[in-house]
């Protein structure tokens, strides 16, 4: 149970139960769908930009606690950031959940998102945690297509 509590931190459980920014951005043409066919997770991330700054970001969809909480916390983390800053956060996040960056080293760049460090102990869940980030990246590039983690 100790390892599980490390993975399922109370903040993660809270965001799973009550996801933030769980909606569509009406009229936004910048959106993308993330799809993990292995487990059926499906997220749609939409963004609106003001110049280079992420003015609003939201998501919808269904998935496991890790994928939902990750999306919810991601929307909070990248709102108000520039596209370049969000992209750097994704890089740090990915390094952390794959165990290549220690949580204490990730903390300055990631803040609250460092909570997902426990995912690195559960390799099969890395895709759950990073699905929303792939979708965000595609949305920022206005791909408007389904990205897949497979």
């Amino acid at each position, binding site marked *: 149970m100790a390892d599980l509590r490390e993975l399922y931190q109370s903040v993660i459980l809270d965001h799973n139960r009550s996801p933030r920014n769980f909606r569509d951005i009406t009229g936004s043409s910048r959106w993308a769908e993330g799809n993990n066919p292995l487990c059926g997770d499906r997220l749609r991330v939409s963004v609106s930009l003001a110049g280079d700054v992420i003015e609003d970001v939201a998501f919808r969809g269904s998935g*496991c606690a890790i994928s939902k909480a990750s999306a919810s916390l991601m929307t909070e983390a990248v709102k108000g950031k520039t596209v370049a800053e969000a992209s750097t956060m994704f890089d740090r996040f990915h390094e952390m959940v794959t165990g290549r960056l220690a949580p204490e080293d990730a903390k300055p760049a990631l803040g609250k998102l460092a909570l997902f460090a426990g995912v690195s102990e559960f390799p099969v869940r890395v895709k759950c945690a990073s699905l929303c980030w792939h979708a965000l990246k595609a949305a920022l590039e206005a791909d408007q297509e389904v990205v897949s983690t497979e």
Partner: protein
Amino acid sequence: MTLAGGGAGAAIRAMPSGAPYPVDRVRADFPILARRVHGRPLVYLDNAATAQKPETVIEAMTRYYRHDNANIHRGVHELSVRATEAYDAVRAKVRRFINAAEDREIVFVRGTTEAINLVARSFGRGAVGRGDEIVVSEMEHHSNIVPWQLLAEEVGARVRPAPVTDRGEIDLDGVRDLLGPRTRLVALTHVSNAIGTINPIEDLVALAHAHGIPVLVDGAQAVPHLPVDVGRLGCDFYAFSGHKMFGPTGIGVLYGRREFLEAMPPYQGGGGMIAKVSFSETTFAPIPTRFEAGTPAIAEVTGLGAAVEYLETIGYDAIGAYEADLLAYADERLATVSGLRVLGRAQRRAAVLSVVMDGIHPHDVGTVLDQAGVAVRAGHHCCQPLMDRFGVDATVRVSLALYNTGAEVDALIDGLAQARELFG
């Protein structure tokens, strides 16, 4: 029910001989069951994905490689003769195992998926044309849907799914309504890999045959649980995999009624499947070798033979009675877990269950169970149309086998309680 505190050795119902089912002894036959996962004893409840292998299967394959390895149907030397004899002996053994009429009705393939693809490519391309229909059901595994879709796409035919009822049974009236002058094949699963339903294959075959329509049965999930008698079922094709019935991966069986197989063109070309090759004309070997191009999985065939022997030694009467009690016990215990729903309540079920828990995604349940050493599968189980039918994205699947125990069901229930505690 006396299972709850029974420990790993809980004996359930008496064997037909009157002796208790020797689950301890059965477990001792499977070396992997002694291992631990995350520091806990392995509780393997993912048997529908692949079953564990008894020592006899592992030993048969090792012995083949250590003592008898040679190619079949080729050499004049001793080892080749021995390998050929062993290979053919397993074909005869499998014929008896499923009560086929003749050895040549048994084709060795890689698994159920290849068996179905073989029928789709070989039988299908000859028998199915533009405007024709193939009837399947909503509970099929993707491997009994996609090969037909590929065929349909190629020839301009349609795949029509028969409905599944709320109880998780194929709606016989629904099947009847779909059968018509354009139906060329009915392809149905014997046992659902996701919810365990045992389909009334004899009735379904009678329905189809009344219209002169042949029937293929996907038996991948049936062979670990039930005796299969293709003569009694009356089906025209029956496909199954070695690895789901405690045998090796990479080997499976296609049973085909002789009249059908003989009329079918080769599936793949190569060595072993020809009678004579020249640039002006190539003629093909008789069945079943016509469908076994290239060097087959000889070691795996010997392993499959050992798996058949293993199942016959324990006996399906004993397995069936034991698993029925285990399933009843699992049902009883699962009913005590709050906010848990079991998908499908078919009248006849094998020991395979799909469950969903309110507010907890199956993947998260799977992770919690894994930490407790309990292996289950979370996901759509290659049954997306069935998941859609029940309005879920995924489930937690618990699939039991002849070596599972009441104590292991208890470990599952404890794990589910832990998931509830964690997620609230």
